[in-house]
């Protein structure tokens, strides 16, 4: 190879290196800020997934100081239905307070009619569910979900179950915290 040809080849190699360097420099200039669009997409998908998962949980029952269900080894998953909550302060039907509780006793002037509001609320719920079933909705199976605080005395539990029975509910599902 002649010296001229060799010099030409060296020049061309140097040019290539320069071109690559220029390209690299140019590329660096192009991506000044991070492209956040892909990250945004990912975040949005995760956020939607978490919100949907949290909102669709059927066993989304608030647990707090006045309402702490007992622990149990029961493993049946919760099927949502009409609910009765017995807490330290209230007895609620479908999240609406129907009776006040003080020292685990139903507050009321006449003890014989103390559970009447509970009976009326449950009976109304049963009638509504039956009407919905007549119009082609989910059939009424007579079940009621009982969520009670772990310290609720048996007397109060039994009286609520008895009232529910009188109102036409024959199947009770006790809601418990899963024992791990």
């Amino acid at each position: 190879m002649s010296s001229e040809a060799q010099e030409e080849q060296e020049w061309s190699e140097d040019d290539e290196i320069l071109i690559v360097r220029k390209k690299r420099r140019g590329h660096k200039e192009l991506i000044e800020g991070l492209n956040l669009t892909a990250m945004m997409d990912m975040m949005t998908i995760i956020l939607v997934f978490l919100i949907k998962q949290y909102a669709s949980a059927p066993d989304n029952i608030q647990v707090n100081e006045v309402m702490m269900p007992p622990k149990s080894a029961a493993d049946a998953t919760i099927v949502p239905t009409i609910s009765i909550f017995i807490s330290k302060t209230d007895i609620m039907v479908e999240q609406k307070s129907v009776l006040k509780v003080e020292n685990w006793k139903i507050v009321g002037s006449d003890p014989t009619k103390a559970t009447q509001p509970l009976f009326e609320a449950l009976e109304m719920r049963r009638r509504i569910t039956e009407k919905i079933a007549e119009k082609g909705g989910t059939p009424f199976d007579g079940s009621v979900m009982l969520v009670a605080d772990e310290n609720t005395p048996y007397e109060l539990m039994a009286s609520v179950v008895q009232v529910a029975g009188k109102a036409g509910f024959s199947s009770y599902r006790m809601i418990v915290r899963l024992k791990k």
Partner: protein
Amino acid sequence: MAGGGGGQEELNLVPYLDIMVNLIMFLITITAYIVEMRETPVLAPGGGGPCQGEGCDDKKPKLTLTIAVINQGIAVLSSDASVVPAWQQDKVGDEYPVAAMQAKLREYRNSYELQDNVMLAADKQIPYKVVMQVMDGIRGDSQGPLFAGITFGQAR
């Protein structure tokens, strides 16, 4: 010119991304604190009566057990005390003898013709958590299931 639409400026996504990250962190954190809930069925009073309908031998009715959670401990009673003897054990401190009750129920289950449903009754002031503990014991032990149905009885 201010407010002109000449340049194609991109939206500043950084604050939006900050909100998203915070929301995701919040949701993941609260998911860890959500208490897992389950349900356990209880029969209506009257559901634990004599066996009726198909599959029941009318000539030889099965015996029904009643488990009473009392202030002193746990008692197991049957509908015929001459066949199935009554059993009672006192609690030790605040601990109810659930394991001893399970052993006795297993013995009765293996020895006598009993109904699958039992009646559960408790003293007025017995807390629900104790009742649930006993209910867990009635449903099964380490050897397998004991009694499938539990009927809530009147408070004593």
